[in-house]
């Protein structure tokens, strides 16, 4: 029942997003939507490790950059199509995440978060000084033939639909994951590691799996970014970008399916609006807005908007959300 009841929201949104370009052709608006899809992808991917599994990473910008660099370098140096580069980057980022986070998983809460910040900083410094990856100047993607193979198109429309499609795939994967056996393992680990151990869950194994999946999806979004913006640099790994990945999830609801998506849809327009309206007057005002929103949410509704909705009895009954497996079974 739950799925039938919740799907209309997402389907409606999808239909609207599908037809938006028919009415709006202004490149700037399309650009905002493209960046919105990109941020939403990152937030959903982060949510696998940070929300579902409860391992609060503040270094995810590094995985995004690994995805961006991997596909770009493969294309420039070996002529590999970015589509394959995307997969290679995803696996690479996943493996790096698993290896780096493995020793960090003994750390809990803020200590783990600190370790992830250090990890991202290390990678940023590494890339800044590494000849092969273009050092601090980064890489300007070459002007190649515009084709599917090269992931290079004229105009913003193809990027719009590809971004939407990728977001749909990542979001759908998360929704399926959340109700799967794997998702239950992740959630149990987040809730209580001792209890997880006692009911037969290999805590370390599932943390590693969560890190792998989360970093891999993040890297996929990174490839998309590189192909769209066509310029990448080590500063993409700055802490600020990691935080921008986390914010939509916190505001929408950590660990919930729809939260990061909702958060991205709220934050991106606000930040774009403020950037346009106040960018010249008060540069960085969107960051101030982020901060205010963040403080408000954490003070007033620490579960985020979707988490807060889920905690309301009437909403639960209305939507059968989150706790509604029982309905499906009993009928």
């Amino acid at each position, binding site marked *: 029942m739950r799925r039938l009841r919740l799907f209309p929201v997402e389907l409606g949104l999808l239909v609207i997003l599908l037809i938006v370009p028919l009415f709006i052709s202004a490149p700037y608006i399309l650009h905002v939507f493209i960046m919105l899809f990109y941020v939403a992808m990152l937030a959903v991917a982060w949510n696998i490790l940070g929300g579902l599994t409860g391992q609060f990473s503040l270094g995810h910008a590094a995985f995004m950059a690994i995805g961006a660099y991997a596909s770009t370098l493969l294309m420039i140096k070996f002529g590999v199509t970015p589509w394959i580069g995307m997969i290679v980057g995803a696996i690479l980022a996943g493996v790096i995440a698993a290896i780096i986070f493995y020793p960090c998983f003994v750390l809990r809460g803020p200590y783990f978060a600190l370790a992830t910040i250090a990890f991202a900083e290390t990678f940023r410094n590494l890339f800044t000084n590494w000849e092969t990856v273009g050092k601090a100047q980064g890489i300007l993607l070459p002007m190649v033939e515009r084709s599917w193979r090269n992931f290079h198109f004229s105009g913003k429309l193809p990027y719009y639909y590809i971004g939407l499609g990728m977001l749909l795939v990542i979001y759908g994967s998360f929704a399926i994951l959340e*109700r*799967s*056996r794997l998702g*239950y*393992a992740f*959630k*149990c680990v987040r*809730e*209580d590691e*001792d*209890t*997880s*151990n*006692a*009911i*037969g*869950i*290999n*805590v370390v194994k599932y943390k590693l799996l969560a890190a792998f999946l989360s970093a891999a999806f993040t890297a996929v979004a990174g490839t998309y970014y590189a192909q769209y913006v066509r310029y990448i640099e080590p500063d993409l790994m700055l802490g600020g970008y990691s935080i921008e990945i986390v914010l939509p999830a916190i505001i929408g609801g950590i*660990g919930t399916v729809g939260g990061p998506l909702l958060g991205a849809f709220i934050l991106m327009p606000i930040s774009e609006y403020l950037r346009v309206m106040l960018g010249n007057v008060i540069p960085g005002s969107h960051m101030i807005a982020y901060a205010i929103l963040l403080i408000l949410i954490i003070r007033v509704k620490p579960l985020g908007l979707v988490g807060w909705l889920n*905690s309301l009895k009437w909403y*639960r009954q209305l939507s059968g959300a*989150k*706790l*509604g*497996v*029982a309905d*499906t*079974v*009993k009928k």
Partner: protein
Amino acid sequence: MMLQIQNVSKRFRGLQALNDVSFSVEEKQIVGLIGPNGAGKTTLFNVISGFYQPSGGEIVYKGKQVTALAPFRRCALGMARTFQIMKPLPYMSVLDNVIAGSMFGRNRSPNVTVAAPHALGILEVTGLLKKQNVLAKELGTADRKHLELARALAAKPDLLLLDEVMSGLNHTETEECLDLIRQINKSGITILLIEHIMKAVVTLCEKIVVLHHGEKIAEGSVQSVMNDQTVIDIYLGKDDDKALTSTVN
């Protein structure tokens, strides 16, 4: 033989929490583990379930050496436990808590569609069906105890370790819980339980093991243990006042 505890010792720095404890649990038995506060009962449970490594001695489960196995591996073999200080998965519903139990452990339901009916069945037995959609953190003490039991049962164990599932329950709740444990045992599950409520121990257990200061001081049928002079001394204090002892007896 379901479980053999062989010469188990556990030392925490200067404290000898368990000293050379040995006993065994036969299949389909209900064995009670009693002793005053700080006797080492929960420590022994942690050693049996794998949360602590013993400083010495071995745990043999269904004829298999499990001393070095992690808790989740023991659970997969069929050993499930509850926690004295209840540890629900707080931000998950009661049903999801039990579904999680059903998906891992020895049961290993592959997905929610399989796990949910199984979990609902267990919720019915443990009297939590009506609260299935409540978040675990919102439950009261009695329900939390039941949830511990339900989650452990969902793993389809053949050995159940119950750490004070009845403390904090009122009279009626205790009676219900006794019935439930008997019922679980009848379904073929061996039970080792820690309990302070003597009535529960006396009515349930075929065998009682008494721990004191980390040492086993008595073992045997309810009758023999209850009449054991050392046990009486420890529980009632060594006292010359025979009148006190006799009134209690």
